[in-house]
């Protein structure tokens, strides 16, 4: 016999009480993760952000920050970082975007497609160190291209590998990992460019240029811009490549931070490190916020995810 009854005299309050506990106890389940992320993510972030507003004696002060804003070295490094990030974002997004298009217009499950995706996955996560050696092997002293250039075009910049260690070199090297990253991020968007749109445009009398300028590019632009922003952040935050390639400790902001942390020459300056880190966080957060806004528009269109 199964009964479901409702005696009017119910112990509603005590029932509600224990039920409250039972629903609240579910929150215990996130405790481990909360503790962990608190230790390894939130605490360092808080440390940096609050530390930017303290001096080395742990008192509140904006000295570190104002010093950063006034130091010509810092400003120079920051400019370098920005320029580097900008150029590599542009180059990477254009080249990567075009390559993604080339992939999509080919065979979907073919070898080339699969290989390109696999290669992109590997190269995008390609450690900065290995990247540096790849380029040293190409353009550095005794490198493949540089020795070739010495024979063929001895007066060109390629023959002398000094350019590699400057901003231009960094741009070329960074773009190497920006391209695969762009492919991975942008490919889904291009794949979602429905062939029906192209067909509709054609049947309504539009030609290729019109399709692209009126439909293709406007649809792709938000996603493209978003991906470019992602590339910017990626470049801005990078450290490994520059650290391996360049000896100048304050060429880029990340390098400056590393130096401030563990200086072999003078005393370490944690306050400076934190101030610079804070500035980095601000820049990155700002760009990521823009990215989020763009993504919001894109997801309205990309239904098949």
């Amino acid at each position, binding site marked *: *016999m199964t009964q*479901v*009854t*409702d005696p009017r005299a*119910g112990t509603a309050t005590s029932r*509600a009480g224990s039920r409250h506990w039972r629903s609240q106890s579910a929150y215990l389940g996130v405790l481990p993760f909360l503790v962990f992320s608190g230790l390894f993510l939130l605490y360092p972030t808080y440390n940096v952000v609050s530390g930017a507003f303290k001096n080395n004696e742990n008192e509140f002060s904006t000295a570190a920050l104002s010093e950063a804003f006034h130091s010509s070295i810092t400003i120079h490094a920051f400019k370098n970082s920005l320029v580097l990030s900008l150029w590599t974002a542009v180059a990477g997004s254009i080249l990567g975007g075009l390559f993604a298009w080339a992939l999509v217009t080919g065979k979907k499950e073919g070898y080339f497609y699969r290989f390109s995706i696999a290669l992109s996955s590997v190269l995008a996560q390609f450690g900065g160190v290995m990247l540096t050696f790849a380029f040293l092997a190409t353009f550095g002293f005794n490198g493949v291209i540089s020795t070739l250039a010495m024979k063929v075009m001895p007066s060109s910049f390629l023959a002398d590998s000094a350019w590699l260690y400057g901003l231009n070199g960094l741009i070329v090297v960074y773009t190497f990992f920006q391209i695969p990253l762009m492919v991975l991020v942008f490919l889904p968007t291009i794949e979602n460019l429905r062939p029906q749109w192209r067909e509709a445009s054609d049947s309504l009398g539009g030609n290729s240029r019109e399709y692209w300028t009126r439909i293709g590019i406007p649809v792709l632009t938000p996603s493209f811009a978003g991906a470019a922003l992602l590339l910017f952040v990626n470049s801005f935050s990078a450290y490994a490549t520059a650290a391996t390639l360049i000896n100048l400790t304050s060429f880029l902001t990340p390098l400056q931070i590393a130096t401030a942390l563990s200086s072999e020459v003078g005393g370490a300056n944690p306050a400076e490190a934190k101030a610079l880190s804070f500035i980095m966080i601000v820049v990155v957060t700002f760009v990521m916020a823009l990215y989020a806004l763009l993504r919001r528009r894109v997801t309205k269109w990309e239904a098949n995810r």
Partner: protein
Amino acid sequence: MKALDGLSLDIAQGELVALLGPSGCGKTTALRSLAGLQELDRGQMVVDGKDITFQNANKRGMGMVFQAYSLFPHMTAGENVEYGLKLRAHKTSTEKRKQRSSELLEIVGLSTHRNHYPHQLSGGQQQRVALARALAISPKVLLLDEPLSALDAKVRTQLREEIRRIQLELGTTTLFVTHDQEEALSIADRVGVMRNGQLEQIAVPAELYDRPSTAFVAEFVGLTNPIHGNVSGGSIDILGGSLQVLPGSITSGTGIALVRPESIQVEASTSGKSRIFSASFLGASCRLMITLADGSRITAQMPSSESIGLIAGATVNVSVLDMPVFVKALP
């Protein structure tokens, strides 16, 4: 607003009770409370003499079949059916488990699909596997939460017969929730009609149909013709007949009688005061829409064999069978 309000329900051993009602009436809440997936603020649940009100869902030993997507996608049909038994591994051996799952797959007619994955099965087949899986643990109560709603019409009718057959064979106490009144009426021992968290009436299908106790039940279950009339002395005069009024109706004054289409008698007559507006052939029966002398329209239903000559445009005489009828108040 309360999802369930003063609901009291007794289900006998081996009985199939259907909870019927529109969406939001609380039928699913009641079922899920019984399963332990939902908590009651007040009240008590007793199964087999044991109070299970505070017992966890995974200890209640009830088999539940959900509306859709409940089969574990990474397991074959056979593995799905065995899942409940596997959890009780200390009580059964691998041999016994295999035997039992084969048994059940046989009962639901899917023994050849033992090694198929859910995505390889049709909707109806998936629900059968879900049924087998729920039955594998020999549940005290079988709970079915609108199991047929997501299926095609034809599969629905087939499968509901099978569910009933299996339930009778195994003698499992069953609670079946649905919004489809035909479904409920055709397979249940008793049907409970629910509205706004309350049980309006619970009775055997015939009684629900012939003797509804509220206007809502009368109108929700089966078709009705609303016909105005005056109630006095326990009867109402409509369509040339005097019909007894069912308990629960208004006792005096003008009301709306809810007359079943099968109760309407139609006779072809050249001097008839009513005219057939349209005739629908439904196979075994025929449905006629008739315009009465006063301009109102009613629906009559009769076996097709009796509808010869009754076509659109024909003039007819309309009368009503002498059966008790429910009369509701004017809005």
